[in-house]
């Protein structure tokens, strides 16, 4: 049981980080990025290809993170342009359709060019005992990186002026503009940033299980469920929902079977929305 709990927390932290990127883009710009998982996969494949070319693992990972950021920037500069001209619901819908289109193109391209490619940063060595449970080194390292990143995120948003400026746009866009903050600039920054986050999750994920070209959709779906449960636009909610759903997912997979666990996740999400329509920590409009 404790083993499940720890596994769930490891997975949940990654879910939470994944959802953070998605929820920030929504909170800032009213844009839902359904190509999010493909950013993660593209970054993972970039790392794998770089390592094939003989680049050592750390520089290869840096390349992957850069690829994620660049992907986000390209989305902002190209496909999201027409989206920014719309407001409210129309904006959400168009962003959803266009980024879904991008995800199909990326999936198609990757499956055609690199059908057998996968990123596998399996970390060897014996398991380490924690709370009487044996944990794999890969899981521990992935969790450590994720925790450090989450802590960094909190420090950034609480204590830096750029972090506060980004939060102010989520809180009240007109208010932010009236004190000289350009919401478009902040959104571009967050798209780059969320791309890097997606890449980071892909890299840490690959320490536990291989990330291949077919993983994109499931990453997007997980991120989307966690984002909705946490409350769209709410970072703390996303992290909390990530951990809860991570535990639900692992326990369900263990007790019932992993084929059913996605359904259980969806049910958990649906129940949350029925009870709290704005999400766990969402604010009612």
């Amino acid at each position, binding site marked *: 049981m404790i083993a499940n709990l720890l596994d769930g927390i490891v997975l949940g932290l990654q879910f939470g980080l994944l959802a953070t990127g998605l929820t920030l883009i929504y909170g800032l710009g009213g844009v839902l990025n359904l190509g999010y998982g493909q950013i993660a996969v593209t970054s993972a494949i970039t790392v794998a290809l770089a390592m094939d070319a003989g680049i050592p693992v750390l520089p290869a990972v840096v390349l992957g993170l850069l690829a994620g950021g660049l992907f986000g920037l390209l989305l902002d500069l190209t496909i999201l342009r027409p989206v920014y001209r719309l407001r409210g619901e129309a904006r959400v819908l168009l962003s959803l359709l266009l980024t879904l289109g991008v995800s199909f193109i990326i999936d198609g391209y990757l499956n055609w060019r690199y059908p057998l490619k996968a990123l596998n940063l399996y970390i060897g060595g014996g398991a380490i005992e924690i709370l009487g449970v044996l944990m794999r080194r890969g899981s521990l390292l992935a969790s450590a990186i994720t925790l450090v990143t989450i802590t960094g995120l909190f420090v950034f948003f609480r204590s830096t*002026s750029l972090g*506060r*400026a980004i*939060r*102010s746009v989520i*809180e*009240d866009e*007109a*208010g*932010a*503009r*009236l*004190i*000289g*903050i*350009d*919401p478009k600039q902040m959104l571009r920054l967050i798209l780059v940033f969320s791309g890097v986050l997606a890449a980071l999750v892909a890299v840490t994920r690959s320490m536990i299980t291989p990330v291949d070209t077919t993983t994109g959709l499931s990453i997007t779906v997980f991120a989307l469920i966690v984002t909705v449960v946490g409350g769209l636009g709410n970072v703390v909610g996303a992290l909390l929902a990530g951990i809860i759903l991570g535990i639900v997912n692992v326990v369900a997979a263990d007790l019932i079977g992993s084929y059913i666990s996605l359904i259980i996740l969806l049910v958990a999400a649906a129940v949350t929305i029925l009870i709290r329509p704005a999400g766990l920590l969402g*604010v009612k409009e």
Partner: protein
Amino acid sequence: MLEVSGLSAGYQGNDVVHDVAFHVDQGEAVMIIGSNGAGKTTLFQTLCGLLSPSSGKVLFEENDITGLPAEQIARLGMRFVSAARHLFPRMTVEEHLLLGAYPYKPDPETMSIVLDLFPRLAERRRQRAGTMSGGEQQMLAVGRALMSKPRLLVLDEPSTGLAPLLARAAYEALAVLRERGLTVLVTEQQVPLAIAYSDRGYVLENGFIRLEGTTEQLAANPAVRSAYLGVT
């Protein structure tokens, strides 16, 4: 300092204000008065860049700011305090004041001026804006704007939602700021308040400027007296 000419603006092609012209000189306090629905808020939202004008021109310190987005106008040193306040509900008083100076480092001297002016904000540094009373929120909105050391402060109905005593206090704070050399443009429905604290004024009716003059001239005008000062 601010020079507006032939300005028309509104929503979706329907102009609410028409061919408005006025000016604010360095160091002045100028009021624009008018009843509810006269177009004061539309006019001010256009001035500060939240709305685009359909025609006309706005000059701020010789810069043409017509149609510039709000964030650029704010950076030029003209700050707008909306009647809707547009605070950040889940952020603390302190965070608002720090953000007011964005992208620059907050100047400690300006911070202490603001906190001296509104001691209430100093007491509530860690409180979230969303949990504060209307009067405190108004102070915070003005304080946030002041943190950038603006040369022109534009206030839309600062007395909105405030009890008479608090509304008076808001104007007293403005008087202090004026002594420090701040130029102020203000709209007001509660005309007696604005008249007591301004040098000159304009009367906006149905989107047109109908009258202008010094506050003494306006206060002596029979039309103003009966419509806005409750004197018959």
